[in-house]
């Protein structure tokens, strides 16, 4: 990873006072905090950077090391000690420094994730919010149902509410990235992706479907059966129904999201089928009909 200038990240000068550092951090945190920038990955990343910069520059000991060693400041002291020991060894000093080196790293790592001042002595930061997609069909989202999904190796049962739309999001609290300084884990946002359905078109909670009607039912009237997502329904066709005519079936459409028991409407467009492969007798009768008009 490229060396990051924490002073630049916080937009302050190297001689900034602890109060200046604190003020700069607060100002930027208010701008980029994940609570104030929902679903904004760039803001989240920026917040992590300023948080890291504040953890270093806001801690006098870390700041001193950072100012002294710059890049690789976390291990600067060890490096310096190792160099000193190496030079002593070169002049006949006896002690090995390799085992010493390993232990120090752990100390530094624990220091890195140690503490910072703030509410209750420590500022706790929520982990990063993560996002994922879940593909759901129109038929699946017709009813509220539960689905088990795998999140980082954990099986999580989620409830998919009836009537969700393509692009809708739900939040799974605490399933995001781990928090810092004992803060809560971030959230996982699941976006529902709904593919187009081959039979139904959806506009909000209204559904649109095409039903085929034979010529004789269209002319003389009758009854047809229409498939809906809620099951088959019988529909009366008025005599002299025209091709492309639409009927509206109230509350036979799609469930209204977060409004249990409420449904949109179903719009049925009639597609009148003209008979093909006519027999001689049928042709004769159609000709007779045509002459009557």
């Amino acid at each position, binding site marked *: 990873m490229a060396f990051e200038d924490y002073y630049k990240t916080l937009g302050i000068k190297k001689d900034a006072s602890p109060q200046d550092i604190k003020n700069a951090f607060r100002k930027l*945190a208010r701008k980029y*905090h994940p609570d104030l920038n929902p679903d904004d990955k760039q803001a989240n990343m920026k917040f992590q950077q300023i948080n890291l910069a504040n953890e270093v520059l806001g801690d006098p000991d870390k700041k001193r090391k950072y100012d002294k060693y710059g890049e690789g400041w976390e291990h600067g002291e060890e490096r310096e000690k190792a160099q000193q020991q190496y030079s002593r060894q070169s002049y006949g000093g006896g002690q090995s420094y390799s085992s010493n080196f390993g232990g120090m790293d752990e100390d530094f790592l624990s220091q890195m994730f140690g503490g910072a001042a703030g509410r*209750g002595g420590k500022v706790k930061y929520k982990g990063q919010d993560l996002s994922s997609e879940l593909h759901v069909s129109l038929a699946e989202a017709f009813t509220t149902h539960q689905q088990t999904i795998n999140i980082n190796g954990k099986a999580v049962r989620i409830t998919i509410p009836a009537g969700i*739309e393509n692009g809708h999001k739900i939040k799974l609290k605490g399933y995001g990235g781990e928090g810092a300084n004992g803060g809560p884990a971030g959230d996982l946002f699941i976006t529902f992706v709904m593919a187009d359905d081959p039979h139904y078109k959806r506009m909000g909670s209204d559904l649109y479907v095409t039903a085929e009607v034979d010529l004789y039912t269209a002319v003389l009237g009758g009854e047809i059966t229409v498939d809906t997502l809620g099951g088959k329904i019988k529909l009366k066709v008025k005599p002299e129904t025209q091709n492309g005519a639409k009927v509206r079936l109230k509350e036979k459409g799609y469930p209204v999201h977060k409004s249990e028991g409420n449904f949109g409407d179903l719009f049925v467009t009639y597609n009148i089928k003209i008979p093909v492969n006519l027999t001689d007798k049928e042709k004769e009768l159609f000709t007779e009909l045509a002459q009557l008009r």
Partner: protein
Amino acid sequence: MTKGQLIPATTFCLHHEIEISFIDALYDHGLIEVIRVEENVFISEDQVGTLEQFVRLYYDLEINLEGIEAITHLLERLKEKQDELLRLKNQLRMQRD
């Protein structure tokens, strides 16, 4: 108020190391709903996420209650606009098909 388990406000405050007066102040500003049973104040489980967000804004970012009120209002409007945009995108997609 939506259904959900009730959590004593004192438990929430102890866990987050905050004063109970903060909950009262949020309630007075109309930012949360609470249930009072005799002397005890309870919070609905559904509101815990929002309340935690308010705690972070107030204590970590030092945003006062008026600021939190304004932010909450703007975030709600942002959510409404995002939903509207989503609906329109879906309608446009349908009309293109």
